[in-house]
């Protein structure tokens, strides 16, 4: 205890060890305090609490107590056996003590006169002393109310329990159920009397998929990030967060240039894209985006780099066959280990699960080039917010490992037009290349332009290109044509490249 007020400090943090969570809270939950975790059924609050206990033992050498009011402890432990952390072992080895306060089957107690919950408090104190606990979880307190009947007694006694734990120097995590994703923090107004800190777990429907998020509602005397942050539950670690906003823009920028695989395009970019840049290639179907990916991959393979291709539109064999037609041997490169192709249906998992997996594969394979063909396939199955979070998550991860990225985006309209993907993520990408169909005198031709390139001069012209067995051939700028980007190619009588450039400037805003 401090002897004067000026000696008081803001509460210290206790790292949970849960990936992403400690970043979100700037260090963890307040040490020696209680934190309430509210959530509806199936929101993952019990898992979160159990993970907090297990990580305590495994990562921080801190023992704990599991107090269960609802589920039988054997069932709780059994549900975690498939995960990477070993709750059962910690209990057997006396590092985690269990207080079973779940209802006794077939014995509903009769009430006669006044009572308190001193027995429960003694049991928790005893268990905490027995193992020298630093962490205690109470799961979930709402289940205590029907057991005890008198809600006021439960409130008073829970408050007493939380105070006792605090006196013991223990950090507690209290879970409580909510009846809906919005509305009160927890049933029985638990938060009003037990918690210094409140966080909510949600499990909402989002485009026919479940989207799990976490929100820190209050963290007394401490800074934290606000808003809902997506998390996922996997079979190994359990709950993991991707606090995208926690990613700081502090990646070192490289000035090295790499080849896009198309010599003329490199020239248009004054030497090629930067080593760690994220390039978005946008164009209608058939404009050659997948071909551009193949050439980008080939440049990596030829330079002895490691390339990684995530395909969400075509199968591996289809991609390999098509690449062969352009003289790119995917099969050989894969055998030699300079290329890895991961082909999946976008619908195979949720966006956040895709993100976690893509990150994992990047971690394992350590590529210097990553292509995603296409981003728009993934966009179709999500809300714009989660899509933006996804792209932000991937780009920042790639930047942290200094890998170059090429993402494709299919624009919906054949001629011109913009897409949601572009408008949502154009600010995240470093470079945008636009491929467009141009109709000139009843003939379909193709145009390419570098719409944006951060930190470098680039060609402003819209150049014509053709596709043959050698890949993309970029030629001269279109002349006497205006309105290509908007999709209404109009033949002008004035041969004025400047006019063209101006139109392009106007369109890029």
């Amino acid at each position, binding site marked *: 205890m401090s002897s004067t007020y000026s000696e008081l400090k803001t509460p210290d943090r206790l790292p949970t060890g849960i990936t992403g969570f400690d970043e979100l809270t700037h260090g963890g939950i307040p040490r020696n305090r209680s934190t309430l975790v509210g959530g509806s059924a199936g929101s993952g609050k019990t898992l979160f609490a159990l993970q907090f206990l297990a990580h305590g033992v495994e990562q921080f050498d801190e023992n704990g107590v599991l107090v269960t009011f609802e589920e039988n402890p054997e069932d709780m432990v059994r549900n975690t056996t498939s995960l990477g952390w070993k709750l059962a072992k910690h209990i057997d080895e006396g590092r985690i003590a269990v207080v079973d306060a779940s209802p006794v089957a077939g014995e509903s107690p*009769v*009430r*006669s*006169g*006044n*009572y308190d919950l001193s027995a429960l408090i003694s049991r928790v*104190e005893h268990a905490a002393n027995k193992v020298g606990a630093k962490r205690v979880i109470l799961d979930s307190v709402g289940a205590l109310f029907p057991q*005890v009947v008198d809600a006021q007694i439960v409130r008073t006694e829970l408050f007493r329990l939380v105070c006792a734990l605090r006196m013991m120097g223990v950090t507690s995590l209290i879970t409580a159920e909510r009846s809906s994703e919005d509305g009160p923090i927890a049933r029985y107004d638990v938060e009003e009397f037990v918690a210094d800190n409140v966080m909510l777990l949600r499990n909402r429907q989002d485009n026919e998929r479940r989207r799990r998020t976490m929100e820190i509602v209050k963290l007394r005397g401490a800074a934290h990030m606000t808003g809902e942050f997506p998390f996922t539950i996997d079979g190994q670690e359990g709950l993991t967060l991707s606090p995208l906003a926690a990613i700081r823009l502090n990646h070192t920028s490289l000035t090295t240039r790499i080849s896009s695989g198309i010599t003329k395009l490199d020239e248009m970019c004054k030497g090629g894209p930067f080593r760690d840049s994220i390039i978005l290639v946008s164009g209608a179907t058939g404009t050659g985006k997948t071909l551009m990916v193949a050439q980008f991959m080939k440049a990596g393979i030829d330079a002895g780099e490691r390339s990684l291709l995530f395909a969400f539109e075509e199968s591996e064999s289809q991609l390999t066959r098509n690449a062969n037609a352009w003289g790119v041997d995917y099969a050989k490169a894969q055998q030699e280990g300079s290329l890895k192709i991961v082909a999946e249906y976008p619908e195979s998992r949720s966006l956040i699960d895709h993100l976690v997996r893509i990150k994992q594969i990047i971690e394992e394979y350590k590529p210097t080039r990553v292509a995603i063909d296409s981003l728009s396939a993934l966009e179709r199955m999500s809300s714009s917010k989660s899509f933006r979070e996804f792209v932000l998550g991937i780009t920042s991860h790639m930047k942290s490992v200094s890998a170059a990225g090429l993402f494709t985006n299919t624009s919906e309209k054949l001629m011109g037009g913009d897409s949601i993907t572009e408008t949502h993520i154009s600010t995240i990408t470093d470079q945008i290349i636009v491929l467009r169909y141009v109709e000139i005198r009843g003939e379909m031709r193709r145009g390419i332009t570098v719409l944006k390139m951060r930190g470098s001069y680039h060609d402003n012209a819209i150049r014509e290109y053709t596709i043959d067995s050698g890949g993309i051939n970029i030629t001269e700028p279109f002349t006497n044509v205006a309105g290509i980007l908007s999709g209404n190619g109009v033949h002008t009588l004035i041969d004025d490249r400047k006019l063209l450039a101006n139109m392009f400037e106007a369109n890029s805003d």
Partner: protein
Amino acid sequence: MTDYVFHLYIYGSNALGKRATSNLNLIIENDLASSVTLEIIDVKLDPEAAEQHRVLATPTLIKTRPLPTRRIVGDLSDRSAVLEALGVISENHWHE
């Protein structure tokens, strides 16, 4: 005549525990005609016993004999609730 086995869980020497003990003794004397074995457990001294029998509230009276096992929570001041829970139909009246 039935033999009763009671376990009364109390906390330290607080007022609730004292009241429960005296109320229980009155019930034993006045309402139960058979022999009674009573064990009083102080959860402050023996939290392990409370853990083993999953006792949350104090005072808690657990009747283990005759079966079925019954739990009565509180200071046992509601005599008729206790008697009902114990399965005793009392002929006597309660005198305060």
